[in-house]
């Protein structure tokens, strides 16, 4: 680590880190704004970010369906794209967890191990590596925070309610730095939204019911926006909100941490 606590400083010429921006396939194709916000936020924080354009996907959709043995192509491509960077940062806890848990190389396991060690979810990177303590963002709205399971329980971005341990939340820690933002209290702070990858179609009934219940917790507690460190959960909840013709919007946490909205 060569670079901490820098706000709005340009990259130092020689002694700086390079970050590879890993944008999961569905964010690339459906939520470019979340990716742009991630890129801009990192740049704003003085990080030298590069987006390797030959990236596709982490392979999780196949692996979670039981086809991990088909993911070698994805893995090799990922290693090719990202092993050169000091850090790999992604605005998706779920994809990062998949890389951390399941990325392997056929011929160069050492390289794969290195990649697994240096991949970070965005809020984790901001909190643990950049040690961000202030932001100049402003977002004067009531926001419900969805603690995505893979980020929370897998990457430990926040303490889970199951454990008898001190509470913390990296996403909330960052959101609390945003001017005007009010975090709403949920009845069930860390229940799954029911997306679950192919689960969302394979188990359509339960998936939808879980999504509806999660959304209604946010609505009942007055959220105007639902945010998360994982766009896939938000995509699921957005599908339900829009079907319900709700005015409540989903927004990736990067967009809020990067927001300059004033009353």
């Amino acid at each position, binding site marked *: 680590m060569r670079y901490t606590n820098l706000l709005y400083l340009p990259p130092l010429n020689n002694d700086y880190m390079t970050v590879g921006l890993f*944008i999961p*396939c*569905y*964010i*690339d*194709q*459906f939520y*470019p*704004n979340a*990716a742009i916000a991630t890129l801009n936020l990192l740049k704003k924080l003085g990080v030298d970010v590069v*987006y390797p*354009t030959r990236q*596709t*996907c982490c392979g999780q*959709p*196949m*692996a*979670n*369906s*039981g*086809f*991990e*043995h*088909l*993911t070698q*192509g*994805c893995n*090799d*491509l990922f290693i090719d794209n990202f092993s050169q960077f000091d850090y790999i940062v992604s605005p998706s806890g779920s994809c990062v967890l998949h890389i951390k848990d399941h990325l392997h190389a056929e011929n160069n396991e050492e390289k794969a191990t290195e990649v697994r060690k240096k991949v970070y979810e965005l809020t984790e990177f901001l909190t643990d590596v950049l040690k961000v303590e202030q932001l100049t963002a402003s977002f004067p709205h009531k926001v419900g925070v969805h603690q995505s*399971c893979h980020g929370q*329980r*897998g990457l430990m971005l926040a303490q*889970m*309610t*199951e*454990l*008898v341990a001190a509470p913390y939340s990296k996403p909330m820690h960052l959101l609390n730095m945003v001017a005007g933002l009010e975090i709403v209290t949920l009845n069930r702070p860390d*229940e*799954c939204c*029911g997306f*679950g*990858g*192919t689960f*969302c*179609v*394979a*188990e*359509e*009934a*339960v998936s*939808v*019911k*879980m999504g509806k*219940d999660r959304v209604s917790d946010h609505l009942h507690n007055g959220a105007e926006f639902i945010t998360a460190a994982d766009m896939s959960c938000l*995509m699921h909840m*957005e*599908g*339900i909100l*829009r*079907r319900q013709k709700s005015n409540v919007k989903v927004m990736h946490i990067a967009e809020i941490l990067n927001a300059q909205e004033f009353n």
Partner: protein
Amino acid sequence: MNTGTKDHAQLSDAFNADEARVNWHDETLWFVRAKRDKAAHNIPEWEALRENASQIKDNVLSNLHDYLVAFEANAQANGIKVHWAANGAEHNQIVYSILQEQGVDRIVKSKSMLTEECHLNEYLEEKGIDVVDTDLGERIVQLAKEPPSHIVLPCIHKKKEEIGELFHEHLGTPEGMSDPVFLTAAARVHLREKFITRKAAITGVNFAVAETGEFVVCTNEGNADMGAHLADVHIACMGIEKIVPERSQLSVFLRLLARSATGQPITTYSSHFKKPRPGQAMHIILVDNGRTTQLGRPDFRNSLKCIRCGACMNTCPVYRRSGGHSYHTAIAGPIGSILAPNLDMKQYADLPFASTLCGSCTNVCPVKINIHEQLYKWRQVIVKEGYADPKKTVAMKAMDFTLSNPSVYKTAGKAGRFVLKHLPFVVSNKLNLWYKQRDMPQPPTQSFGEWYQQNELKNIKKHNNDQ
């Protein structure tokens, strides 16, 4: 349970037809999970207790052979007759032969998930033995001719009005009476008559102590004790994984069990059976039924640490919204989904997929079974063994091809086309199951990759040229 060829998705689709009922089921079980949280948070050393229990079970699994031999010898020295059953059928035959020897054709049985797993009731009924389940919840589902839907709360899927109707029909309570206090009182009268008149009692086993040859049975109702202490013959049925090495370790498990299960500090009764009472015959049946196979699977053997508290069911967002019967196996929920494929991979190929892998189960588990990781691993095994839908395999191969080739991906992926085609909306589904109850994401005018090309890369090039 005979569900034909229906899988978890179909059964839970049916369960979700009545949304108000799903809400009620979810909230009832969430209430139990909340009680568990409160009880756990009352114990500052809770996480250390879980770790300790998990390590004790590691030791048990690694030394099970010697512990079983010691348990058998000590139990025999205590005057208990020990039997071994390789599978469910043999277990059932042993029970029947003991009853035949004693000339008993009416028995009481307290809760034992093992006997559910072995389908003992159906077997004994075919042999003409009258079996009365004495746990109130189990008696209710028995009268309804259903299997339990939860290992600790067998009739959690039933509303009191439905129970009132069952009692009206079978116990003669007034029609329309559904007050839980009244119904429980009626069951008390009904079941005390059974306890008084039955000469043989079957119980389960929560823990069996290798060092002393005793076994512990936990209940709140006292039904195991009522049965066992009044009967001439007590048959205790246990899976071989129920062993704990020493009596003192019961402290750890008894502190964890009820708190995890229902949020109680301990069950009302934690009964330690060491010797038969004078004149009584006491039998223990040690059952394998696939457990040794599971013990031999390094990725899955930890599932044998399970102490059957049911916490993983109460916390599971899928279980709460699909009901226990949707798992079409004796032990439902997350733990059942990692146990069942060991017994029959084909029949239970759907269960490891009936999860979002949220991981809550792993973190409430009092013996720290890595349940969600095992669900993921079972998926890999089930696909490799050829139990996946062939259409899914084709789709996955196409996905692999696209995702391994950036140029193919880019062509496929212009503004959402790839995702719409593959991820995860229409994989091997003719109808778009995403759209049924959810709107599709709106494809943007350009993908991030395209935006980056247009804005960032051009700027970088321009910047470089300027310099």
